[in-house]
């Protein structure tokens, strides 16, 4: 074993992972080569110096600031493709293709939803008060599919109450998707109704 080869085994010897034969060759070279011996001593000392670097303590506001940032991120409007690109770590052009496909599927769903919806459409001239509410719980099959699509792209792990005091409430074990209320566009808009 020459000097260069010996240096190549410094870490393996230090971590005791050399096989018996290599170990013998390494140690016999070190025993007779003063230069390698000195280099190996320095090697061990510098590894020790790295391992003994003092640990850095996080600042006390690290966690509160993190939650603040998460909360800010939630309210920030990020383009969907940017969001997906970040999330899946894939190029934006690929997201574009997938997005078109998803929109096409969603469009088809909406289209069939209207065709097969046998419920009578609300008459905006007569029945005003019943349709004022714009929020409706999920109850139809197609709504369920849509919500599944939304769930796929918007992590259900985004709590609605980020940053609020409920954040650290350990008693709250409610699954997050139950906290979502999907906004559904009403067929009758209150402004139109009010005008008539």
């Amino acid at each position: 074993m020459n000097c260069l080869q010996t240096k190549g085994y410094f870490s393996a010897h230090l971590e005791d992972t050399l096989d018996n034969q290599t170990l013998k060759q390494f140690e016999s070279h070190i025993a007779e080569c003063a230069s390698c011996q000195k280099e190996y001593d320095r090697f061990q000392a510098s590894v020790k110096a790295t391992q003994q670097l003092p640990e850095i303590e996080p600042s006390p506001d690290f966690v509160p600031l993190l939650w603040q940032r998460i909360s800010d991120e939630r309210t920030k409007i990020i383009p969907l493709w940017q969001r997906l690109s970040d999330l899946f770590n894939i190029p934006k052009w690929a997201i574009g293709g997938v997005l078109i496909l998803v929109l096409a599927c969603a469009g088809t769903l909406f289209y069939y939803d209207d065709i097969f919806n046998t419920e009578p459409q609300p008459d905006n001239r007569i029945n005003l008060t019943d349709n004022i509410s714009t929020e409706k719980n999920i109850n139809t099959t197609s709504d369920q599919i849509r919500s599944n699509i939304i769930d796929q792209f918007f992590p259900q792990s985004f709590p609605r109450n980020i940053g609020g005091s409920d954040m650290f409430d350990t008693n709250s074990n409610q699954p997050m998707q139950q906290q979502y209320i999907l906004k559904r566009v009403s067929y009758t808009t209150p402004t139109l109704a009010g005008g008539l």
Partner: protein
Amino acid sequence: MPETDDELMQRFQKGDADAFNCIVRRHQKPLINFIARFTGDRDNAEDLAQDTFIRIFKAANRYKPGRAQFKTWMYFIARNLCKNEIRNRGRRDRYRVDNVITNAQTSNGNEDQIDLIATAPADASFQPEVAIERKELRRATQNAIAELPEKYRFPLILRDIQGFSYEEISKILELPNGTTKSRINRARLMLKDKLKPFMELL
């Protein structure tokens, strides 16, 4: 027995934000240390560590427990953010790294550098000369690490500061095991040469 990272992530996936808070509290310190040692900048390290946790928060529902170790995934994200950060810093950073040693020797280095070496553990048998020498060595070590090329710096920090196994490092850095081993040995040899002037202190 404390909950594993996987158990916490599963709780978080079910909507328990407190579980994510536990993850953050558990990993904030090693993560900040990793980033600070890599970038040589303590203040920015906290921002980058927060960026890492935000990425994890956003991608949490895609995490598959048991498939990859949580830590490996976290450091993989952190490493990519560090690389982006270094790339974005560009020339400014290169200039700074060039000046780190000069600053250290004039004992007038910037705040971050001082911060990175000043948090030494208290010593009962306090000797001013020894303390100064140790501080010098710490400063030199930090600067020598910051001077290493990225491909050597990452594995060295993961091994000698974070204490990862070679297998874990290979996963984080997406390298074959043999390459990881040889890079760590090479990094240590480079560090040894850089620290030569300080070796008499040891």
